[in-house]
Structure formats: structure tokens, C-alpha cells
């Protein structure tokens, strides 16, 4: 089971090929079954792998891929405990999303294409997870990017989807190039592409400190692009143009977490460079607060969740940057469950409301869709950090690692972001489920096929925290024989109290504003209208990019087009014109008169003779 773990990604790949070949001929049910069964098999297999995986470097397998001089680049798999955990998370969430999509995508004319894309994504993500070397990692890294692109642009005829897909691809590509350079630098400075080999070389001090920092920062650049960290975060909220199951799978639970996973996977590299650690921590903290503050005022249900994702990813980065390896991974896991749950819940709401996404036109759904409401509430409680939901434990771990690493500023930012999170999540919850229905028409039903995956996720969101508490079982399991410090000991007593009370304060504020309506949001808005506008426009980052990068680039391109047309080609024309003039002059000599021809011959002869005799003259 363990030795053949490389089959796990191939299962969804087979499904992809089948679905592509089957095309539109297959009925919806067949396509959904093919995809779901393949992923279920992968999921079961992953569970088996998780049960038997040994600690330390785990199990490796590789085959030659490309011979280059004396070096042979290999492809293969490596399963250690981190990988195995990721395998399970990815395949599990993917399976649930597969099941859920059957209901969500009902009636779509490219149904089987959607499942094919989902299968391809699952394949790529699983391949990414078990990559033993950086190159393979990069390959799958790009593949998940392209799947994300395809799925964001799934409704290709919508101009917004088209723009969002393009933006997602290009912005992540910017980060990817950083990773690309990092892979090459790692190869030249350590002589290998194996992740374990690179780490070994760095730990043995074979690489200069400056180079290690550079490589770590470039890897982090890749992670920034993929995980939507500032300043490359803007694609992630736009990516909500894709179908909601996609947002749940790719843009909440798995792909965006790949950046975090990457940092975790190469964690010893970061540990070796204080600068890199600082960068990760500060970028993570800044993103956490930044995105959370934008999330406060957004009105699209999926966008609120998207900013919340960005913010939570910032949390994970923050944890990793503060040396909280297990805290980061733990939060990654819990977040995968509760954020997927939230997205699927949002999807259920959207389906029920006939594809309405604006929360100002929702409300009062608690009575009609109690099941969805409860599940969504579980997700909200988990993300806000209310015990005993999983988010509470992981968030506390994160803040604890920041505190113990001595990063007060980061800690304070984390606490503030946690307050924001609680507020906007419950703002969302109350606006959607409490009060009166503000939309048009009647809310429709939600199929049970969509409900029970949410149920599974809710259970996980509720229980996943107990993998770590009490006793730090997860940390020990993850770090056994890896040389990475397991945890930070026990937390001070005041920390859980602080986090819970902060979260409760956020929830209370949201309650006050949107249920009891004792605090008027309009008043707050009126007090700082410019602040509200800045938040609503997401700090004008998109506009800034357009003005600073996109426009000048377009200008440069148009300028160069003129340059190419008039200067480069002009030079060519000049040359041809010169030749043509010469030709025209010589055609005039061709007047058909023998004497002229003879004269020219004579002159030519004379010149020739002078040329020959000139050697003797001098």
C-alpha cells in the first residue's frame, strides 16, 4: 500500500482521461460516478497510507525522467507523514466536492468537462503533494495553477470569468517564476533537485547563507503567488467567478494551501535563514490583517469567504514564519475542513436563492434551510475560534507560536485579525440566515446530495481539533524523526481566554449590528466615509496595479510596435530603397545602345586594370 502510493494520483488521472474521451456523450450521472469513484478510491488508499506511514524521511520511489550529461533528473514519489496527511486532506475534500458538484452543477451542458477538470486538478494536487523533488513539485505546481485557471474560467462566456481566470493565471505565474528560479538555484548550489537532498545540503552548511536566504525568499515568492498573500492576493477574490464547488476545493481547501505546504515542506531552508523567516512572518501577518479588513465590508457572499481565505492563509504563513511548523500545518488542516464547509454552505445558499450572491438580498434562511444554517454556523464558529471547534485549537497554536517566538507585533496583529474574522463571519451569517428575506421570489430546495458532504465536513470541523488537543498528538506524529521542533509546550492560561473573548466580542458586535440593530453600521460608515470606500475598493490595489504595471506595459508594447514598424522595418526599407535606387540608376544605363554598354565595359576594364596594377604602384 505504501510502496505503491504513486498510484493514488493516477486514479483521478485515469478518470480525467475517461471523462475527456467520453465527452458530452455521457450522462451527468455517469460522469459524476466516474469522477467520484476514482477520487474515493484515492481517498481510501490515502487513508491506508496514513495509517502505515513511518516517521522521518518516509518512503521514496523514483524513475529516471531525463538524462542531462552526468545528472539524471528523476520523477517519483515520496511519502512522509506530512505528505500522507496532505494526501488524505486533498483526496477527502476532493471526494466530497465531487459528490456535492453533482447537485450544484445539475443541468450544465459541459457537465462532464467540469468533472474532467476536477479530476485533473485532483491528480495534479495529489502529484504535487507526493513530489520528492523540486522539479516535479514545480511541474505539478503549475498544473494545479492551470486547473485553477480552467475552472475559474469554466463559464468561459462570462467576461468576468474570463478576466478572473486570466488574472489568476498571470499573478500566480509571477510567483511561479520565483519558484522556478529557486529550483534552478537550488540545483546549482546543492547539486540536486531532491527536496531532502537540498535540505541536507543546507543543514550541512554547504551553501552560503546569502544563497540560502535567496532561495528561501524565491520559494516564498512562489508561495505568495499561489496562496494569495499580499501583494499577489488580488486574483483569489476574483477567482470566485468560478463555480462554488471549485472555490471550495481549489480556492479554499487545497491549492491555495499548497503555498503553505511548500513552505512547510522546505521548512529547514527557512529555518536556516532568519531574514526569510522574518519575511514569511511579516508578510503573513500583514496579509491576515489586510484581507480581514477588506472582508469587513464586502457584500458578495463568496468574496467575503475569499478574503477570509486570504486572511487565514496569512495566519498559516505567520505561524510558519514564527517557527510554528506544526501550528501552520495544523491550521492548514482545520482550515481546509471548515473553509470547504463554508464554501459548500455558501454554494447551497446560492443554489437555494437561484444564483443570487449578494448578501444584501438574502436573509431569513434559518427557518427554511435549518440544516444548511446549522452546518454554516458550525463553520462560522470554527473559523472564529470558539471552542471546542477545531479553529479554536489551531488558531490558538498559531498565536502561541508567534508569542513564544517573541514577535509581539505579529501576535497583536493576529489577535486583531481574529477579531475582524469573527465579526465579518457572523455579519455574513446574520445577514444570510437571520432577519427577513430581502430577495425576490422564493428560495428553492437544496438536494440531499449536496447536504451530506457538508455534514461530513462539519463533523471534521468540529472534531479535527482533537487531533492535537489534548496532548499534542499531531505535532509529535508529524515531527517524529524529522529534526523539526515539535511544539512550544503548553500555552499560558490567559491565551485561550483572550482569543475566545476577542472572538466573542466580534460575534457580539455583529449581533448588535445586524440582528439587534442597536449599533448602526451606517453610523460607522458615516464617521469615516473615506475609510469605508478604501475598504470597499480593496485598498485600490487592483487600480494601482493597472496604473503602475498594466498601463505602462501596454504603452511600452504599443510604443515598441511603432518602433518595430517604423524604425526596424524602416531601416530595412532604407536598405532596400538604397538598393532600388542603385538599380534604377543602372537601368537607365541599359538604354539598348551598344556603345553605352561598351563604354561601361571599358570603364570597368580600366578600373579592373587599375586595381590590379595598383598593387605594383605602392
Amino acid at each position, binding site marked *: 500500500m505504501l510502496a505503491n502510493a504513486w498510484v493514488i494520483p493516477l486514479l483521478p488521472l485515469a478518470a480525467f482521461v475517461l471523462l475527456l474521451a467520453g465527452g458530452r456523450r455521457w450522462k451527468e450521472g455517469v460522469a459524476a460516478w466516474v469522477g467520484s469513484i476514482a477520487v474515493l478510491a484515492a481517498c481510501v488508499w490515502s487513508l491506508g497510507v496514513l495509517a502505515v506511514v513511518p516517521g522521518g524521511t518516509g518512503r521514496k520511489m523514483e524513475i529516471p525522467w531525463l538524462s542531462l550529461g552526468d545528472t539524471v533528473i528523476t520523477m517519483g514519489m515520496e511519502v512522509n507523514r506530512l505528505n500522507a496527511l496532505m494526501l488524505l486532506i486533498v483526496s477527502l475534500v476532493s471526494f466530497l466536492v465531487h459528490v456535492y458538484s453533482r447537485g450544484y452543477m445539475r443541468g450544465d451542458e459541459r457537465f462532464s468537462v467540469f468533472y474532467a477538470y476536477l479530476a485533473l486538478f485532483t491528480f495534479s494536487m495529489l502529484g504535487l503533494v507526493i513530489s520528492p523533488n523540486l522539479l516535479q513539485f514545480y511541474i505539478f505546481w503549475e498544473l494545479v495553477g492551470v486547473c485553477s485557471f480552467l475552472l475559474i474560467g469554466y463559464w468561459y462566456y462570462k467576461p468576468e470569468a474570463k478576466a478572473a481566470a486570466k488574472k489568476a493565471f498571470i499573478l500566480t505565474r509571477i510567483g511561479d517564476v520565483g519558484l522556478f528560479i529557486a529550483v534552478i538555484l537550488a540545483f546549482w548550489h546543492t547539486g540536486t533537485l531532491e527536496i531532502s537532498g537540498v535540505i541536507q545540503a543546507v543543514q550541512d552548511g554547504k551553501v552560503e547563507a546569502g544563497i540560502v536566504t535567496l532561495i528561501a525568499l524565491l520559494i516564498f515568492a512562489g508561495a505568495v503567488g499561489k496562496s494569495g498573500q499580499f501583494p499577489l492576493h488580488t486574483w483569489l477574490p476574483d477567482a470566485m467567478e468560478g463555480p462554488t464547488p471549485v472555490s471550495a476545493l481549489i480556492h479554499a481547501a487545497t491549492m491555495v494551501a499548497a503555498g503553505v505546504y511548500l513552505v512547510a515542506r522546505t521548512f529547514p531552508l527557512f529555518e536556516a535563514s532568519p531574514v526569510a523567516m522574518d519575511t514569511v512572518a511579516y508578510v503573513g501577518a500583514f496579509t491576515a490583517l489586510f484581507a480581514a479588513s477588506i472582508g469587513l465590508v464586502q457584500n458578495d457572499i463568496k468574496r467575503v469567504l475569499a478574503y477570509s481565505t486570504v486572511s487565514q492563509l496569512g495566519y498559516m504563513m505567520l505561524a510558519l514564519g514564527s517557527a510554528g511548523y506544526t501550528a501552520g500545518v495544523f491550521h492548514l488542516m482545520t482550515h481546509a475542513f471548515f473553509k470547504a464547509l463554508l464554501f459548500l454552505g455558501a454554494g447551497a445558499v446560492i443554489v437555494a436563492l437561484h444564483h443570487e450572491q449578494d448578501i444584501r438580498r438574502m436573509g431569513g434562511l434559518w427557518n427554511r434551510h435549518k440544516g444548511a444554517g446549522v452546518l454554516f454556523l458550525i463553520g462560522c464558529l470554527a473559523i472564529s475560534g470558539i471552542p471546542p471547534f477545531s479553529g479554536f485549537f489551531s488558531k490558538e497554536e498559531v498565536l502561541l507560536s508567534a508569542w513564544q517566538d517573541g514577535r509581539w507585533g505579529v501576535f497583536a496583529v493576529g489577535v486583531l485579525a481574529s477579531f475582524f474574522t469573527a465579526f465579518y463571519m457572523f455579519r455574513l451569517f446574520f445577514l444570510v440566515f437571520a432577519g427577513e428575506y430581502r430577495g425576490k421570489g422564493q428560495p428553492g430546495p437544496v438536494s440531499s446530495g449536496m447536504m451530506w458532504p457538508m455534514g461530513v465536513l462539519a463533523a471534521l470541523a468540529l472534531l479535527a481539533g482533537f487531533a492535537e488537543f489534548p496532548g499534542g498528538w499531531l505535532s509529535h506524529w508529524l515531527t517524529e524523526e524529522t529534526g523539526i521542533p515539535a511544539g512550544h509546550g503548553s500555552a499560558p492560561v490567559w491565551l485561550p481566554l483572550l482569543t475566545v473573548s476577542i472572538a466573542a466580542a466580534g460575534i457580539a458586535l455583529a449581533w448588535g449590528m445586524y440582528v439587534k440593530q442597536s449599533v448602526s453600521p451606517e453610523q460607522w460608515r458615516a464617521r469615516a466615509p473615506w475609510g469605508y470606500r478604501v475598504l470597499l475598493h480593496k485598498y485600490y490595489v487592483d487600480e494601482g496595479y493597472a496604473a503602475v504595471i498594466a498601463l505602462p506595459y501596454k504603452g511600452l508594447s504599443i510604443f515598441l510596435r511603432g518602433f518595430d514598424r517604423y524604425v526596424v522595418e524602416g531601416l530595412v526599407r532604407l536598405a532596400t530603397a538604397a538598393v532600388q535606387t542603385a538599380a534604377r540608376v543602372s537601368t537607365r544605363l*541599359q*538604354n*539598348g*545602345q*551598344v*556603345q553605352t*554598354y561598351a*563604354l561601361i565595359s*571599358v570603364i570597368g576594364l580600366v578600373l579592373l586594370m587599375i586595381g590590379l596594377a595598383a598593387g605594383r604602384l605602392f
Partner: protein
Amino acid sequence: MPVTSYLALGAILFSIGLYGVLTKRNAVIVLFSIELMLNAANLNLVAFSKFGLHPSQVGQVFSLFSITVAAAEAAIGIAILFALYRNRGTVEADRMNSLKG
């Protein structure tokens, strides 16, 4: 007499002939000039048969051949001229530009 004098004479005659070929509009005169150039060449042949590196009477033989050919050339030339004259009514060289495409 040094050979250079004969060669110089040949060169002078040749150049005059050449000038005639290039400038005279009357095709008959052009033919004359060509004959003059041929004579200049003959002169060189004969001169070298006496003063050459390996003097030999073969030079004279060649000049004989050359004279023969020149005679034939003159005959054909005049004949072509006649034909042209009948066709185009002129023997002026600068009117003959049918070479021009």
C-alpha cells in the same frame, strides 16, 4: 628599336580605334574603328614575333589568321549593316536600341 615603341604604337592605334567605336554614331565608321583595333592587335603579334621572349615566326602566322578573320568579319559586318539599313532606314548606332527591353 625597342619593342616598347611598337607596343606603344599599337596602344595608340588601339585607343583611337576604341574611341571611335565608343563615340561614332555612324555604324560604318564604327566598323572602321574596329578594323583599326584589330590592326593594332596584329601589330603587337608581329612585333612580338621579332622581339618576344621566344621569338618565332608563329606570330606572323597568327597575324595572318587574324587578318583573315577580320576580313570575314568586315564582310559580315557590312552585310548586317545593309540588312539593318533596309529594315530601319538608318545606320546610326544610337538609333539601334532594340536591345533595350
